[in-house]
């Protein structure tokens, strides 16, 4: 029998074995799972043996040692240090002297800390702030139908958010603005009219508010993660808007995660129907 056909049948057997867990825990599942656990550890073992230890350590180190015997010093002899540290790491399997593995561990931890300090500061803070600093409002000369649809939706959303947050700041339970209610209402009315006009305006001419929305999201989101001040007054309002942005973000993540999980299952079903049973071409 062709080894490929055998392979596909074995693969199907194991796939169904794992899926049988959905019905209930059973030996078939446990067997498949045990194979998976063992195999993946074996995979890592062999893979690292050839691709890291051999390709990286041995091919550098052994010629260096050979040339040392011929009386020459090779820069690659410094790999001896790496070899020793690697061995120390493995000593963790021997509990009495397992503490020695802290030495290589601290090389890893120190290096990672040094690299991360810069990387996160640069890529995730400085550059993100830099690209949030852009004009809040731009007037694109011409944009397509689809984009302008997005822009209008965005504008309506932004005005709604502005309005609601203003309402929250003026009338919210934790509001610290001390004005007579009619005055507050007056302000709110003005804002309402302004926002309505703005929305109407945006329908007639697309003004791109992407910059403003992103700025608001980042600003309010950061305020939510600001722990040195109580969330009252302006801070409270901004933090609340921040949570809305976070919730929409989580919603997007939620949607994408569901999408991802479903894709994986589709991949497996495709295997079962196309490669194994061959009922679908």
């Amino acid at each position: 029998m062709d080894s490929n056909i055998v392979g596909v049948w074995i693969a199907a057997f194991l796939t169904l074995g794992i899926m049988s867990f959905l019905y209930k825990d059973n030996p078939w599942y446990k067997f498949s799972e045990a194979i998976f656990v063992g195999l993946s550890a074996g995979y890592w073992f062999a893979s690292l043996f050839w691709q890291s230890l051999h390709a990286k350590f041995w091919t550098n180190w052994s010629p260096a040692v050979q040339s040392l015997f011929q009386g020459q010093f090779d820069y690659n002899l410094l790999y001896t240090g790496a070899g020793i540290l690697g061995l120390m790491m493995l000593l963790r399997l021997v509990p009495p002297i397992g503490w020695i593995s802290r030495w290589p561990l601290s090389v890893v931890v120190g290096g990672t800390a040094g690299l991360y300090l810069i990387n996160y500061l640069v890529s995730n803070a400085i550059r993100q702030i830099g690209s949030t600093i852009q004009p809040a409002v731009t007037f694109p000369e011409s944009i397509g139908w689809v984009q302008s649809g997005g822009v209008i939706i965005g504008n309506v959303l932004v005005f709604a958010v502005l309005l609601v947050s203003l309402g929250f700041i003026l009338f919210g339970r934790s509001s610290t603005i001390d004005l007579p209610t009619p005055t507050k209402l007056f302000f709110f009315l003005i804002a309402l009219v302004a926002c309505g006009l703005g929305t109407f305006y945006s329908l007639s001419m697309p003004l791109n508010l992407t910059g403003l929305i992103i700025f608001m999201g980042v600003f309010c989101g950061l305020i939510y993660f600001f722990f040195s001040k109580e969330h009252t007054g302006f801070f409270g309002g901004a933090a609340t808007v921040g949570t809305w942005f976070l919730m929409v973000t989580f919603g997007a993540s939620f949607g994408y995660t569901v999408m991802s999980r479903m894709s994986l299952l589709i991949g497996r079903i495709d295997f079962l129907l196309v490669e194994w049973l061959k009922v679908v071409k």
Partner: protein
Amino acid sequence: MLRKRILIILLLCLFASANFLPAQESPSANINTEFLERFKVKPPTDFEVRDTPNDNGSSLTLNWRLSPDDNLWGKRGLVEKYVIGRRLAGEEKFEFISTATNQSRIAFDNSVNNKDRYEYQLAAYPFKYIFRPIPWNSIMMVKQMERFKALAPWISLNPHGVVLSMLSQNYSYYVDLDGFRSDLARKSVWENFSAGTELSGPEGITAAFAAGQVVSPFLPFFSFFVQSSLTSDPYQLVTIGRYLGDGLMAKTEVAGPVKTKKSWLHLGRINVLIIAVVLSFFILYFIRQARKGKELFIRKIAGLDAVEDAVGRATEMGKEIFFIPGTQDMQNIQTIAGVTILGRVARLTAEMDTKLEVPVSRSLVMVTAREIVQEAYANAGRPEAYDENMVHYLTDDQFGYAAAIDGKMVRQRPATIFYMGAFYAESLILAETGNSIDAIQIAGTAMPAQLPFFVAACDYTLIGEELFAASAYLSKEPKLLGSLKGQDIGKALLLIALAVGVVVQTFGWYDFASLFRL
């Protein structure tokens, strides 16, 4: 073996001449010139070489303006690539370094050292066309040549004929004029380039390859073969192309000499340096303050109040509380934060006399959690109520752990469940079951992919940094409180920069954002 090969070559010669001899009768010098003129390209301009700034002196930057023939002809233009040559200052011959694709204006030479001075020359290289590779098989070869002729009727017009480059499976003998990759090809191309001679006909090529393994008899139009010295290699002809000759390359003026510089400070990163120093200063300053015993204010974290209510609810209902500290080990800071919050929960359960259960998936977490729970019970004045079995180990396996907790939840129906720590995909399974038994669920994690599920399925969620802030608030550890405060100052500074920047930028006053560029 050798004989066989000579035989094949002879046969090939025969075939080839049979094929091409008629064509040889009408080579027209005029057409050749015309042909060459048509493919002549203009050189790139403004070629200059500078030290690559801000590095350890291992690189030079080459800039030029495109040749006017680059991108003139439809999508591609006449220039296929730019060839870069280099020599040490004072030497005569240029050495081939590398190529850059057409439409590129910049290249780096990273194979320079810090001691020598270098001079460069750049040349625009015209297109040649590549056809299907053919295997080493004489009959195939003839067929291929016929096909080739059909595809390229100008073959007889081209004074340089056809170049066959060859590949053996052992790359050290590989000759690829297309990519200029082998040393042989490199040398020939660049030597002729620097000497300023055109490769005219097979002789030129013979000369170029004299040092190599050129063994073939030369035919008028069927230029040359290159042979590997490894006899057993199966050969494959890879490219047949119209070879226009290196003489058609359009060279620039010599640029240089230049020498690299080693820099002591990366000038493009000074803004990062300043921000890093300021941020570090504040973090360390506040850690110091906290150690001195200064009270650092942290705002009320709403999730912690919910903890109290949730424990109270379980007490009222007379049911258990589950606390799940995630699936990661003790070195994960989220687990540490989770276990800190466990201390708070345990203290409340001790005071309210409610049953607490902490199933864990790592033995180290078990040890730490036991210590913390015991301490909390002692601090609440009820050390006798502490039982070691409150904290128990289930399994290291992710899904096994989830399944085991699942079973426990359905059987014991706790009133309140806490998830505090680092979670992966198991979060979903846990939160679902918890929800189905109508438990109040409070979660806290910094795992971005799991947060949405917790928010949707739990009654209260500590989001990301809130988890750390809560643990700092509860543990009162100076290093945590101080860093939290330092980070807050960092955040405040960034927020101010952000607000000022956006306003300034909107009114188009100043390119404020460039302060944050690299």
